[in-house]
């Protein structure tokens, strides 16, 4: 089971309290009905599914119930950092990431 740090509660809590909510930073169009089929497919169905660093959403379902984002390595399942919803995608990952990502 994963240990996940909720950036709102500022605490590491067991995975059972959380729900994964898929890939992060996929913006929904303000005019979804006006999207072309291609763009809708990209938004709705296509996923990056990376082997390595993923940016993903989690929801602290049985805690504060808020959505937040996380950066995780999908090979080791280790979390590199979590940050609040609405914050931009981190351009630089914390130092610890090098050690975590090293295989």
């Amino acid at each position, binding site marked *: 089971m994963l240990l996940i740090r909720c950036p709102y509660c500022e605490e590491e809590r067991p995975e059972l309290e959380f729900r994964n909510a898929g890939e992060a930073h996929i913006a929904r169009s303000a005019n979804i009905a006006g999207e072309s089929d291609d763009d809708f497919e990209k938004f709705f169905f296509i996923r*990056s599914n990376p082997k390595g660093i993923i940016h993903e959403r989690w929801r602290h379902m049985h805690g504060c119930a808020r959505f937040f984002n996380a950066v995780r390595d999908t090979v080791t399942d280790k979390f590199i950092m979590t940050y609040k919803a609405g914050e931009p995608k981190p351009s630089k990952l914390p130092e610890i990431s090098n050690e975590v990502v090293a295989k």
Partner: protein
Amino acid sequence: MKKYSVFAIAREAMRGHKGWEEQWSSPEPKKEYDVIIVGAGGHGLATAYYLATVHGITNVAVLEKGWLGGGNTGRNTTIIRSNYLYDESAGIYDHALKLWDGLSQELNYNVMYSARGVMMLAHNVHDIQVLKRHVHANRLNGIDNEWLSPEQAKEFCPPLNISKDARYPVVGAALQRRGGTARHDAVAWGYARGASARGVHIIQNCEVTGVKRAPNGAVMGVDTTRGFIGAKKVGVVAAGHSSVIMNMAGVRMPLESYPLQALVSEPVKPVVPCVVMSNTVHAYISQSDKGELVIGAGTDQYVSYSQTGGLHILQHTLDAICEMFPIFTRMKMLRSWGGIVDVTPDRSPILAKTPVPGLYVNCGWGTGGFKATPGSGHVFAHTIAKDDPHPINAPFTIERFRTGRLIDEAAAAAVAH
């Protein structure tokens, strides 16, 4: 290839078993092949086998980053059934089921296909409605499926708890008698032996690291850990890693990869005569010929390539098993493991041509690909050989996620995802 038979066993017994030959050869890769298959699991090896036997294409290499059959082919719970809801799914899964019948003879290799019956339990009104809908839809498609009362279910599977006091009592069941199990490793080995005997090169410990494309966009071959290997046709059959390989060719896929776990108990005498599944309490179980209970769990909730999953997922499944079969509460579990399954948004596979000329993909089987192995290989070989899908796999395109023509089988899976 020397044929296996009772006479071969007698002959070898007389001379100390010195005459058995290797089941498949391990040649050095050539510079170029007509077709490269990426991934030597059941589906990839079956594809190579049918390319050779049905289409006469034998200049084929199957590249495998690990060892043959070491991915999900060796990690699944070996269940075979075709009781899917929609016509398209019924078509492809029943095509496979018809090939399972007789596969041991075709391959001259005992895949131990056992049509012991797959029984899916209903615990509430919704389950009854869903399963009866499946029974009717299946029968319209010529697929056997029948409705059982709780008493009939217990008669078919005596250890089942049908007490009305159960927390989720059994109120009925759907039974596909032609469903069952097969020996998963033997399926990979049998196809590998048959393909190798016809000239297919199976190259293990050879990981694909890139897909080379010509200036006009068409496939030229693949970069591997053993150098560049050329081919004008490349078929990607890489299960959980399919999207990784497709990204190398510049194609983004509607796939996400999740860990899926299974476990086996200590071996005991025959006690579970069939396969039992329950979507509602979320577990499925059968018994191997070695006597182990083979139990399948659900997927973890996050994308991962770790080939491991959370212990709480297994615990949840075992809770459900003990609910259905109270006699197993003191059974010891021996081993558990995880595989990485590639899941599509509509839970149906993709077997198709891709936007890249010469590149074909067979992926998205999610949590239930083993059962389809022979049918999948058969129609995918057709797709590669003719550069045109077989009518059976024609609906399973990548483009369906743009056109909206989905094959929405989410509710038909063995366990809810």
